[in-house]
């Protein structure tokens, strides 16, 4: 069998589109600044929520990439070697994501009483407010016994400590796997593959714990009374699905620009499509499990969270997720034809990415005004624009970093011992 020509893949993305990373950075900054300016109209709280939405969306893609890399090493996968490097580059964004998490952390820790930040952060994360948690012995602020019970976990110093730990874990894992993989490009040493395989198992455990708890910290604690044991798995399902979609889009983009045109075949698209399909079903399974059990148990302490999401304001979004995040992509990808036809897969992948963002909005935005009239907060065009700006901003900065990182080496692990298997891979 003739070996596919992969010489073009040694070129960097930088050669492909010079200045791409700067462009992305500039675009990201402009979007964020525009979002900040819009905050004068939309309010600080909307901006912070939109920022959190964009942040969790981008973070989920990076985490999905990290999961993919760990999984491929842990299972000694052969088929995926050609696309593994792309995933490794996508894990390079944790540094900039750590920086981008600072606005949220600073707002929480300092709670500055300017521009309404203090009130906004208390409404977003009620457990950060001394007054809500401990009260001041008046009828208006009696304190909250449940939150007092949770204060051992939901406290800002511990929160900051955990955030440091999460980013520490992710930075270390992503650095380890990318650097060893790049090292192998030079040396071709099979021992490196074994080393990465061995490290991937404890890496998986650290990954599972950090992902679950970051979801609890930044998403579940938005409604600090509510709890669901499956919540971390729910965020994981969306993350993995988001990344597989992103991977399909990236493969398509690279190929349509003449990169990896021989290395990546329709078989790899097929497999990425299968993984995306599997995680569409997995996400629906987890979402259904969570919804059905809460619906059936019908306990006020749990249903409050869903009641908001079934109110007239949010019911359309809930239905959008049911159909857009599950039914439509499920039907679109069930046959092998669209998975093997690149255009079909990429169209589905883009759709899924938008739906994944909707899922994040659905997790972050619906809430009851704690400070005010205890009505369900409204959601309008201004909020949507704010979310789009913040998401584009954070995503742009993240992708700029990824593109910059990809200058370090080739687009595929050139001397991975399993590369020939991957290049010759065929589905049956």
């Amino acid at each position, binding site marked *: 069998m003739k070996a596919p020509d992969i010489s073009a893949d040694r070129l960097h993305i930088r050669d492909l589109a010079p200045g791409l990373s700067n462009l992305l950075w500039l675009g990201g900054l402009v979007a964020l600044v525009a979002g900040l300016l819009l905050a004068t109209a939309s309010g600080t709280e909307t901006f912070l929520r939109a920022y959190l939405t964009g942040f969790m969306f981008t973070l989920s893609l990076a985490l999905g990439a990290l999961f993919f890399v760990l999984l491929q090493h842990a*299972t*000694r996968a*052969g*088929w995926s070697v050609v696309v593994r490097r792309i995933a490794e580059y996508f894990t390079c964004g944790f540094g900039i994501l750590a920086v981008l998490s600072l606005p949220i952390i600073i707002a929480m820790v300092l709670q500055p009483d300017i521009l309404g930040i203090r009130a906004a952060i208390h409404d977003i994360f009620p457990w950060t407010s001394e007054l809500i948690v401990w009260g001041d012995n008046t009828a208006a602020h009696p304190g909250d*016994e*449940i939150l007092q*019970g*949770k204060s051992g*976990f939901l406290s800002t110093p511990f929160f900051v400590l955990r955030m440091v730990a999460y980013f520490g874990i992710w930075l270390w894992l992503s650095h380890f796997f990318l650097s060893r993989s790049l090292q192998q490009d030079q040396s071709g040493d*099979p021992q490196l*593959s*074994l080393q990465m395989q061995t490290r991937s*198992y404890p890496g998986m*455990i650290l990954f*599972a*714990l950090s992902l*679950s708890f970051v979801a*609890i910290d930044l998403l579940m604690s938005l409604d600090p009374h509510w*709890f*669901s*044991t*499956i*919540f*971390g*798995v729910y965020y994981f399902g969306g993350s993995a699905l988001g990344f597989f979609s992103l991977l399909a889009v990236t493969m398509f983009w690279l190929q349509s620009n003449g990169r990896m045109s021989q290395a990546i075949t329709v078989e790899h698209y097929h497999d990425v499509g*299968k993984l995306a399909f599997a995680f569409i*079903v997995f996400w629906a*399974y*987890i979402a259904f*499990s*969570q919804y*059905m*059990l*809460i619906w*059936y*148990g019908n*306990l006020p*302490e749990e249903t409050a969270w869903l009641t908001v999401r079934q109110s007239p304001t949010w019911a359309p979004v809930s239905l959008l997720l049911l159909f857009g995040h599950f039914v439509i992509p499920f039907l679109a990808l069930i046959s092998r034809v669209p998975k093997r036809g690149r255009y079909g897969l990429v169209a589905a992948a883009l759709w899924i990415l938008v739906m994944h963002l909707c899922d994040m909005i659905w997790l972050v935005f619906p809430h009851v005004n704690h400070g005010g009239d205890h009505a369900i907060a409204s959601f309008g065009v201004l909020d949507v624009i704010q979310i789009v700006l913040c998401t584009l901003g954070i995503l742009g900065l993240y992708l700029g970093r990824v593109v910059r990182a990809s200058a370090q080496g080739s687009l595929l692990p050139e001397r*991975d*011992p*399993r*590369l*020939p*298997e991957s290049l010759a891979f065929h589905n*049956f």
Partner: protein
Amino acid sequence: MAVTVGEYDNTFETPGKRAPLVVGDHDFASVTEAVCNVNERPMREMPLIWYVLFGIAVALTGVLFGSIGYLFLTGVGVWGVKNPAGWGFAIINFVFWVGIGHAGTLISAILFLFRQTWRTAINRFAEAMTIFAVICALIFPGIHVGRVWVVYWMLPLPNQMAMWPQFRSPLLWDVFAVNTYFTVSLLFWYVGLIPDLATLRDRASGFRKWAYGLFALGWTGAARHWHRYERAYLILAALSTPLVLSVHSVVSFDFAVSQVPGWHTTIFPPYFVAGAIFSGFAMVLTLAIPTRALFNMKDIITLRHIENMNKIILLTGTLVGYAYAMEFFIAWYGQNPNEKFIFIARAFGPYAWAYWTMISCNVIFPQLFWFKAIRTNIAITFVISLLVNVGMWFERYVIVITSLSQDFLPSSWDYYWPTTLDWLTFIGSFGLFFTLFLLFIRFLPMIAIAEIKGVMPQARAGHDQADGGH
């Protein structure tokens, strides 16, 4: 025919060069011979231990049916179930057996979709094990209903009373889920058996040829048939994968849709599925290790297969540990006093002995599999597989009993004591399981012959030299 003496270690793999899945110097004919030998040898050449085990198993099956007969004649009061623990051994055993029944379809379906070709050596008897475990599982809710003679009321059959099942009940979902699972597993198993039954047919004569031929359906191995057969097998795998997840999820709904503390928690569905796979693989190992030694299958069920299964046990054991930890954390985080109470009571209350048995068997001991030396040690593997079986039974015991015996009404709290008949029924179910399994080993090919041939190096199309000359 060539057979390696002792263990051939194929667990080390140089990256880029896949280790062989069939060791020894086998060709197609010797594989056929090695597998069919067990089915074709005269009865007197079956090992003595087979007869001993079969005798014990049949005796225990007698105990099972005797206990059930006594139960039918007397009533459910002969069991230890009473207020407040109205669910006892029957449900524990049901969930235990259904859980074991998950490995077969997992190996057949999920590993198939993941292209884990090592599954070919173990899928056949894991599937058989699944079917027998599901049979054992189906017995328990069936005999727990009280008036067994109207058990058909669970099905939506038209009747003059115009009485229909209550479809909002998770117990009815169980009826549909477990029966669907049984049917689909049976179909999957049978479809996989067709080419191998044809092999036995073509090697046999007389009545055996007729019997195997009847079930082989006239299979000739035509490419057109293989094409549709493979497509059907792939579709069955794709259907079984969500099915296997759904079945134990539905079983978990029996508990989780209620409001009983310790039961109503959203992680139950995936947590039960992980636990089921965990226990199922342990049972596969418990069966595979003696079988491969007894019938000289070490070339086909190699050390690599054992090690891979140990890795899955380690993975699922850790997942189960994650679920235990997450439950504990959320019980505290939720600040629901009942929930907090029940979790503390599990760990330090009257059933602490069961809880810590579960934790050590399910979470601690499998962690030993981090060490390759232990993963590839057959004896230790066997012991740990037994411990996992014990631990997973106790997991169901802890879930069912602790939450029920200390419910919302403290005045009704009571310690749960199973009766002798509970134990006899439970032990008897193992008799039924092993009877069926030992019969299966004797009369049906325990390795998927056609699939094994497909993963041998000679099966690659470009391999043109005639290798059959050994």
